[in-house]
């Protein structure tokens, strides 16, 4: 018989090592489906690596891809810290994008110094409102936010499609369901000449650092951690649990909303209903890989983005399916969960006495 025995303390070094090992293990395990797909394994890995690190272009592309993941990863990490299960990052992202388009396509105009913060604020507010609804239903009526926030994703997406066919439709768009372009004064500047990497990346890093500081160094963060750790004890200690949850909903929704702003105002320039290939959902994976740490979210986003960009490049060169990227990300999550288990428990062989 094998017994599961909890370990005493977890050393911080192990806490950092686990996701790294998990990521590497997932990359190694990817050899199995690669072999099944009939691709030469070592050249495939080489192609994947050069697809990420090969040139200035590939590196900036990876960072560009990581940008929305940092935002949605933060949205999930912050909410999950308080045990608010926000599965609605995708919808909040679209709300943020919609608000950015609403404010940024001619409602008002001004210098970038005014317009960029305004667009960001509008998107963050819209995202916050998107999660505040489910959070209020949770605190008022005990409605399960997993269900409400998830279902809201589809409602919001359909609403966005409606707006793109109606009020927000670009009259110069040749009939395509897309918004008018964001005004030049509201576009996030690019960071490197002739590359797509934009200021949204720096904003994402800054938001992650702020989130880390809030959680670790402020009373507000203390309350969030207490409510997430043990809501009953937090309530007993006089912490306003419902207020804390609503506040967390605003922070989390705002992060997801910023992902939408960053994609519209930084990358695409206008809104379509295929703005996000599931960044909201991928954010959940990123947050779990990061162990719900905001700093970890940055690293996990870079990893997930590298896998996606690298696998894209590999699939083009080798003719294997680009779904391999999803497979690697999923496997790294499983490896992470297994690794987390072994960090907290050890297995002990138990000798059973004969009766």
């Amino acid at each position, binding site marked *: 018989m094998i017994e599961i025995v909890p370990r005493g303390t977890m050393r911080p070094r192990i806490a950092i090592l686990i996701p790294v090992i998990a990521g590497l293990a997932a990359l190694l395990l990817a050899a199995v489906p690669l072999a099944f797909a009939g691709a030469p394994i070592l050249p495939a890995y080489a192609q994947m690596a050069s697809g990420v690190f090969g040139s200035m272009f590939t590196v900036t592309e990876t960072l560009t891809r990581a940008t929305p993941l940092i935002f949605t990863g933060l949205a999930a990490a912050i909410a999950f810290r308080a045990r608010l299960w926000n599965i609605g990052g995708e919808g909040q992202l679209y709300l943020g994008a919609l608000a950015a388009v609403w404010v940024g396509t001619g409602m008002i105009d001004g210098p970038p110094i005014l317009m960029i913060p305004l667009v960001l604020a509008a998107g963050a507010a819209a995202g916050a409102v998107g999660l505040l609804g489910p959070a209020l239903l949770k605190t008022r009526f005990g409605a399960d936010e997993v269900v409400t926030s998830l279902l809201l994703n589809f409602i919001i997406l359909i609403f966005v499609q409606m707006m793109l066919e109606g009020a927000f439709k670009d009259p110069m768009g040749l009939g395509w369901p897309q918004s008018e372009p964001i005004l030049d004064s509201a576009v996030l500047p690019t960071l490197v000449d002739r590359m797509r990497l934009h200021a949204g990346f720096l904003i994402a890093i800054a938001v992650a650092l702020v989130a880390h500081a809030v959680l670790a160094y402020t009373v507000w963060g203390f*309350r969030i951690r207490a409510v997430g750790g043990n809501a009953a004890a937090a309530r007993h*200690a006089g912490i306003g649990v419902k207020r804390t949850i609503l506040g967390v909903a605003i922070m989390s929704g705002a992060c997801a909303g910023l992902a939408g702003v960053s994609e519209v105002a930084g990358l695409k320039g206008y809104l379509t209903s295929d703005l996000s290939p599931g960044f909201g959902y991928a954010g959940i994976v990123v947050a779990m890989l990061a162990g719900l740490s905001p700093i970890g979210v940055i690293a996990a986003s870079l990893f997930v983005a590298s896998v996606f960009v690298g696998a894209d490049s590999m699939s083009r060169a080798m003719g294997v399916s680009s779904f391999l990227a999803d497979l690697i990300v999923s496997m790294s999550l499983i490896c992470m969960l297994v690794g987390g288990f072994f960090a907290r428990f050890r297995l002990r062989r138990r000798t059973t006495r004969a009766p």
Partner: protein
Amino acid sequence: MSGSILAMRGMTKRFGPLLAADSIDLDLYRGEVLALLGENGAGKTTLMNMLFGEYTPDAGEVRIRFPGGDEEILPPGQPQAAISARIGMVHQHFTLAENLTVLDNILLGTEPLFSPKRSRRRARAGLHRLMETSGLNAPLDVRIRNLSVGERQRVEVLKALYREARILVLDEPTAVLTPQEADSLFAAIRDLLGDGLSVIFISHKLREVLAFSDRIMVLRHGRMIGEMPTSEADAGGIVRMMVGEEQARVDRTVGKPGAPALGLAEISVPASRGHRGLFDVSLTIHEGEILGVAGVAGNGQSTLAQITSGLLQPGQGTISIGGRDVRRLSPARALREGIGRIPEDRHQDGIVADMSVAENLVIERLDSPEIQRQGILRRSAIAAHARTLIDAHDIRGPGPQARTALLSGGNIQKLILARVLEAQPGIILANQPTRGLDVRAASEVSRRLIEARDRGAGVLLISEDLDEILTLSDRILVMHNGRIAETKSRDRAVIGAMMTGGAAA
């Protein structure tokens, strides 16, 4: 083991430093009801979980005698073996799938997983026969969610009987039943004893034990303290055995009561899923006294504590602090008004296990300027504060920055006590403050409570440990069935009778 159908010998189970069961012997005879009594944590449930294979004992063996005369030692730690030895257990908390019908629940686990055809008709006929002979009736095609708790309890028993249990363990079967439902359950089970069923019955309700059982065993601190035929038992004697007459752990000193500190007037709370009801509860705690509330668990003490902590708003009645009426008492308000609270369940309500010891020490005073400045935590001040309290209260563990989960139960209680006493509260609610603690930790807690009283605090001490109440309290209240009564007596038998619903003396 002449005549017994079940013999447990030397059953021992240790959880870390706690000896939950200490070489307990138990015999069960054919056709009898054996009542197992003891305070919370006395080891009753631990013992039954070892019988049922849910815990693996550290030592001891379970012997089963079959009707033919064969004997078998149950392999430890295997519920399947207990089931095939025809031991059935009805847990305190129901183990029914709410969205399935009664029939489905009863058959669950008895059918082969991949059998192509389910012999429902045969099962149904068998169940109808069983219901007829046992007198336990349940509507087979109704979903569990639509049944009352009494009906659900009957389904649990039917489930065990359907598996042809010869030994039935009932763990506080009436905790959620009305007296009428309980009576009908007992009557039905009584009828089955003639057919060779034997019952082990765990309960806190002495009246039921005296009415329903044939033999009584009392456990205390994991050891078997005594055993007697029910016909020779009386309530007072049983209570004495349950709570013990050990030497007082702390010398009793007398407080000097001053002005009223906390008053509850005619507080009533309707019963609900989460808590027992209270009826017209009035009490006054004075400065400088310890007011003890005795009673068997589940008679409304938790509800009283929730109201005093600010976690629950009473339906009726008023709360006054220092002579002023307080309209809505919330936990934050209670803290501001100087009520220090030691919660009953320290793990659930007392600490955030994943946060550090230092953080748990300041969790009740986040607004204090010593802890924060403009919303920013003063981390070094918090750490220094933690070191001071850890030294003063001898909180042992890996240090102030370690996760609180790593502390032992006794040290977690010291942490909570340190946090409460540091605020110099005028009123202290101590709900089961020494439950589960070893003697030394318990006497430390008692000493601190007396110190606080001598400094002028009014202490409301709720405890199931009658010794503790008698040793510490200046005045004693007894709770029974959501009502409260004061007693001048310090006689165990008198208080014991009040705890079981007898008249006040």
